[in-house]
């Protein structure tokens, strides 16, 4: 594995490398060099199995992290190739020519994250959300609770209590609140 990482380092700009387990490694590469390295890994390094392609929304950094999880049948090693792409107008090159099921993941990412894969077949078809009009729901800023409250009705008559507040009300209602500090400038 060390040799492979060295090799990858020689080929592309290796932004990060991490080993999670003996059989699970992660590398981060540049967006422009991704297709090249994936093709190399598939054709020459035995990473022929694409287990999945997924995205993580790094809202705070304004990025999406794409993860291409590859697997090598002969060494039994999983290699996750990470790529960071901009969150605004997110776009990525398609890998459907490398793996015939790649388009499926790309269609899903388009629907659930709003990441476009321009050349990918059927990428704009709906996947699980026919007739969805909100923002792509897997984005971090999609507020599930707010959507749920707006869309569905709550069962009437439910109420709850905070034990600490309730005990205050019952036992020491008259205990004074903390005094306000009187400062000079206020």
């Amino acid at each position, binding site marked *: 594995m060390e040799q492979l990482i060295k090799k990858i380092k020689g080929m592309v700009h290796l932004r990060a490398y991490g080993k999670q*387990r003996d059989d699970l490694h992660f590398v981060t590469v540049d967006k422009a060099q991704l297709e090249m390295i994936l093709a190399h890994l598939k054709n020459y390094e035995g990473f022929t199995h694409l287990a*999945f392609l997924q995205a993580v929304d790094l809202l705070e950094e304004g990025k999406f992290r794409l993860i291409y999880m590859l697997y090598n049948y002969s060494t039994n090693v999983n290699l996750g190739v990470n790529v960071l792409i901009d969150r605004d107008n997110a776009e990525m090159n398609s890998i459907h020519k490398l793996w015939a*099921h790649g388009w499926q993941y790309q269609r899903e990412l388009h629907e659930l994250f709003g990441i476009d894969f321009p050349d990918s077949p059927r990428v704009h078809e709906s996947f*699980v959300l026919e007739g969805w009009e909100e923002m792509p729901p897997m984005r*971090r800023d999609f507020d*599930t609770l707010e959507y749920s409250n707006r869309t569905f009705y709550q069962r009437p008559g439910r109420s709850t209590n905070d034990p600490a507040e309730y005990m205050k009300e019952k036992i020491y209602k008259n205990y004074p609140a903390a005094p306000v500090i009187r400062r000079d400038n206020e």
Partner: protein
Amino acid sequence: MSNLSSSKYRGYEADRSKYPEMKNGKAVIDLDSHKYTKIWQGPQHPGVTGNMSVELIVNGDEIVWAKTHVGYLHRAFEKLMERRKYIQCFPLVCRICVPEPDTNEYCVSAAMEDLAGITVPEKAQWLRTLNLEMSRIGSYLMWLGGQAGSLGMGAIAQWTVGMRDFWLDLFEEMTGGRVYHMYMIPGGVRKDLPDGFKERARDLIIRTRRLLSDVENTFISNALVKSRLQGLGIITPEMVDEFGIVGPNARAAGRGYDIRINNPYVKYDELDVKMITSTVGDAYARAQLRYNDLHQSLDLVSEILDRMPEEGAIQAEMPNLVNWKIPPGQTYVKAESTRGEHGFYMVSDGSEKPRRVFARGASYTHAISVLEKLAVNISISDLAGLMVSLHTCPPEIER
């Protein structure tokens, strides 16, 4: 494999000599020509595996175009988990697969343990192994019923689904639930085996084997079944990499990939799991392979019961799970479900809730890319058999 192109085999390479006409590599299907009919198989159709549907264009009874539709069962578990504490995830994930929920439970717990650096105690590992292997039996029995039912053999479906219920009885004793077991929690499992469990389990193994000998006679060794399934839905070795095919579907096409052997988890490294493969790659080969794998699972459960430690902790020492924070990181944990590689990719950001969880189910490609390809040029009456032989399971597609 040269014989694949012979007309005896249907599936991989469609025979377009008559229809539809091909232009620029694409089939020209003009619905107004009255040569073609569009029909939907599903979502409410006995010949569909679960809540999905296949949109078909047929010419006579031959399928010339197919498209899988999912989304009838989307419950956004991955999103829900981002809004829940780690400990609140395990009751959710089991719902990702009804016949085989435990693989999900295992993967989500193992992913958390991997990220948090927790070692699960020996006894809990054995209990997990038992649970996983039993769930494989339950799932295979249900598949066997589905495969027989899809060919019109309702009696066999009733036997095997009935037998599965006895396995669910064991689950009920062991975990407190029949279908959704919610047994594996981060750090271990929730309960030890009840008294007398091993005897009842061994007894059930014998009963299951007795039933399987009937199934062998009436299904595996049945001229009708062979004529229906042989040559149906051939998966070639080239397709395995191309489409990311895993599990029995890949093993029947000659790819020896079984995670229990390749990347052993829980206690599989100490168990004698044999790689069962075939090179034919058709629906009958897959049926045979699953049937043999089911026998192997019975052997394994028997072995696990023998080796189950009497004493030992069932949970690692854990912090307060209500406030549990996991250090930042990402991991991918996978297990062999009856359908193949089942994995969870989990990202933590150091907070009390997972940043991202992704459940990878084998059916994701099997039921869409692969099915859409293999369905073309087969008879509508074979579609149900083909879907079951791919062992597609919609909830793990849309999570």
